């Protein structure tokens, strides 16, 4: 009897110490692996996929520890991911930061002012805004050429002339200052019947006649000339200035230092309007993958 208990006790002791050893080992391993990782994220549309790939691949090429989560969600969702630490780096649009993240009602008058304001507001929350890209990608309102001709539409103000005006956009457009709210308050357009598009693209909606006007992005391939669509001008700059700048956790910037900042800024500097348009076209029209497009671009510019 005594031997049986001793054996059981010995087995139990062995199991417990093995468990503790494993636990310590795992903790040690994770502690060692916890050198600063750049956790990159991107929003849920193709241009952001390309941007996410560009920054991730460039940083990896320079030897940084990088993880990349593609298509986390829209602004609201990815902001939560950022503030909760799931990611510490993602490319955002300066105007979106100013108007949607920090809820300023009207954007500053110039691109530089927009960037400066965004940088200041993010810094106050513990995030650093790195250098902006040359290209910008604002929201825009587009109509089919036929609709433009029929009602004589050139600027957003002209939309007041359209009876039964249906406007299609992603649902978050409804509550944004750079969206329906702005169209109603700044342009005085109260005749808009909003149609939430969900996952269908605005161009599909326009083509099928589901809506007369739709929210589009100014670097969308279908808008490149010759286009089936007319983009209405935005004299009040409601949609603001939307250059891209990476938002990075300030602690990460401090830990990784100037080589990190230089790498990221070098990539941003290459992103001109023609470059972005070409990459968007490659992904959305030529059906190339964002990863390979980014890789090719970085290689050609000696950044990857």
């Amino acid at each position, binding site marked *: 009897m005594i031997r049986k208990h001793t054996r059981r006790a010995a087995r139990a002791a062995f199991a417990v110490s093995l468990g503790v050893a494993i636990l310590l080992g795992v903790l040690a391993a994770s502690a060692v692996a916890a050198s600063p990782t750049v956790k990159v994220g991107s929003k849920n549309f193709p241009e952001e996929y390309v941007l996410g790939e560009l920054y991730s691949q460039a940083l990896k090429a320079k030897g940084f520890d990088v993880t990349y989560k593609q298509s986390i969600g*829209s602004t609201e969702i990815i902001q*939560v991911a950022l503030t*909760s630490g*799931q990611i510490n780096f993602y490319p955002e649009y300066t105007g979106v930061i100013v108007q949607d993240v920090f809820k300023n009602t009207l954007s500053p008058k110039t691109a530089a002012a927009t960037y400066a304001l965004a940088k200041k507001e993010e810094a106050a929350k513990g995030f650093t805004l790195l250098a902006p890209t040359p290209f910008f990608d604002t929201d825009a309102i587009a109509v089919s050429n036929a609709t433009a001709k029929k009602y004589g539409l050139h600027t957003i103000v002209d939309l007041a002339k359209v009876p039964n005006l249906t406007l299609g956009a992603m*649902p978050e457009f409804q509550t944004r200052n750079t969206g329906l709210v702005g169209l109603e308050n700044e342009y005085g357009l109260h005749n808009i019947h909003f149609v939430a598009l*969900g996952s269908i693209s605005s161009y599909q909606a326009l083509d099928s006649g589901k809506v007369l006007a739709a929210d589009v992005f100014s670097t969308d391939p279908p808008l490149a000339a010759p286009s089936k669509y007319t983009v209405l001008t935005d004299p009040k700059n409601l949609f603001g200035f939307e250059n891209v700048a990476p938002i990075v956790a300030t602690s990460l910037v401090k830990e990784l230092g100037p080589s990190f900042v230089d790498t990221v800024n070098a990539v941003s500097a290459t992103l001109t309007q023609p470059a972005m348009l070409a990459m968007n076209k490659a992904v959305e029209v030529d059906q190339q993958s964002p990863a390979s497009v980014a890789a090719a671009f970085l290689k050609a510019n000696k950044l990857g």
Partner: protein
Amino acid sequence: MSLADEFRPGTFVQALHFIAGNVGFLAGKTLEQLELSGASIAIALALALPLGVVLGHLHRGSAFAIGASIVGRALPSLVLIGVFLTVLGIGFLNNMVALAVLAIGPILTNAYVAINGVDRDLVEAARAMGMSDRQVLARIELPLGAPLLLTGVRIAAVTVVATATIAAVDGGGGLGDVIVNQASYRLQGVLGASLCVMALSAAVWLALLALQALATPRGLRAATLLELSDYGKERL
């Protein structure tokens, strides 16, 4: 590791607030979903029910009738919806067809098995009594096959209503419009709509179960109730 800030079980309370504050909107979405589902089920019934009954009555085509379900199960609903969008464009029609295809399997298979499986002795006896083919079908096979047949309809209906949720990605509307758009409706909206769609599916299930119990000849009602506990079997 979860997204700490926004995602907490307390969000369910907010979800209920969302439902309470958007009853009209959600009711409209629910109606949209039922409309789409109803149309799809109607088509599937029109195509599959008579076919299944006739095949069962003639004791023919078992491989086809049973195979329909096997094939149907291997077709992911998202794939069906995607394929029909490329063929029929966005809107109501493409979703209706995709959902109808999904519904055909259970209806056809169960109708066939139900009618085919009616006790042959009874059918023989009825024929011996002088009943015509049509009378045998109407007075013997259909009533006796009703429970299993209606189970197939019930499964098809709930499958369609549940799948109609993702039809939102195709212009199909319905509660899925809210669920796939967290950006606009926030997590409480998504959860609220998810709870609604769950209630909707369960309601359809229970309503058709009640209908089935009513349509079943009294003598077989006990058997129907027993089915609830034999859930796994009927899916096999």
